[in-house]
């Protein structure tokens, strides 16, 4: 059987999601953003919500999310995506509203908006990309940077006496009454990507059913910022990020609400 015999429309098992358009992504080779974009595109398409979704893109590498996803998108001021999402969801309750934020956006400048939107129980989903570094601005220390991790602004490693401790936003979110589903996932292997997709789907469904706010943290790599190859970055993430940011559901009240 030759390759030409196999390549037929009826044998198709995987292709780029319909909602991910043909614009070449500006992300660095091997960046986790692309995988998460794909998952969001797949989930929205599977839910049949392509015409009824509004995504809020952050300030950060994912600022051009609207160039790649064929859904309605709105750009927010730095860190204010959850506030904007709250407003959009209140005005349009039948829309699927999600924000897509990095750690500099969500855990630093937007901490107040994030915590209060989650605490109010707004029916939105926050996708939180945590790569422990400021990727777009050139690899500076982020609130989520691990202790001892070297970045452009802490070249000798993060020291708690000077820089404080890494912030676990997802753990904070899990303690809030307004949140329905709080989970931490990763996209470094096929199994992890499948779990992350299920988590995004569950979060989106919860927000459409009015069960409260949802936070899906994706522990990601920034191979350019970390100065590694994409494969080495995945390995480094497994060895160093997962012990501090363990994967799994932190809170799930979607069955009881």
């Amino acid at each position: 059987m030759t390759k030409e015999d196999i390549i037929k429309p009826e044998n198709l098992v995987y292709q780029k999601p319909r909602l991910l358009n043909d614009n070449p992504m500006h992300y660095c080779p091997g960046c986790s953003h692309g995988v998460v974009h794909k998952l969001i595109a797949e989930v929205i398409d599977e839910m049949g919500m392509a015409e009824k979704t509004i995504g809020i893109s952050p300030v950060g590498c994912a600022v051009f999310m609207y160039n790649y996803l064929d859904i309605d998108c709105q750009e927010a001021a730095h860190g204010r995506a959850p506030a904007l999402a709250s407003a959009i969801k209140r005005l349009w309750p039948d829309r699927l509203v999600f924000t897509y934020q990095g750690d500099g956006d969500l855990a630093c400048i937007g901490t107040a908006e994030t915590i209060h939107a989650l605490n109010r129980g707004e029916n939105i989903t926050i996708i939180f990309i945590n790569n422990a570094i400021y990727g777009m601005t050139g690899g500076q220390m982020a609130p989520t940077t691990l202790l001892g991790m070297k970045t452009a602004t802490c070249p000798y490693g993060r020291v708690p006496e000077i820089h404080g401790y890494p912030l676990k936003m997802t753990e904070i979110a899990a303690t809030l009454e307004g949140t329905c589903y709080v989970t931490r996932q990763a996209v470094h292997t096929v199994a992890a990507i499948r779990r992350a997709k299920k988590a995004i789907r569950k979060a989106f469904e919860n927000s459409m059913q009015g069960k409260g706010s949802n936070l899906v943290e994706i522990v990601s790599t920034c191979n350019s910022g970390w100065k590694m190859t994409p494969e080495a970055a995945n390995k480094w993430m497994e060895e160093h990020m997962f012990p501090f940011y363990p994967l799994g559901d932190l809170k799930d009240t979607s069955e009881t609400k």
Partner: protein
Amino acid sequence: MAKMKGAVVVNTERCKGCNLCVAACPLHVLSLTSKVNQKGYNYVQQVVENTCNGCSSCAIVCPDGCLTVYRTKSEE
């Protein structure tokens, strides 16, 4: 015995040569070429024709959605 046969089609202009699919492939059918696309990246190619079983691992981990996977049953 029926065996699954797969084939991977690469959008070579979209590929950035990150090598994640090569690492994810359990049957080692992919490899980066020495040729470059218009952006100057060494793109990925299916180098082994008959081994692929169409598991789609490569396409799932691809951050840029460059890979399309086909799969069929073969009675050989």
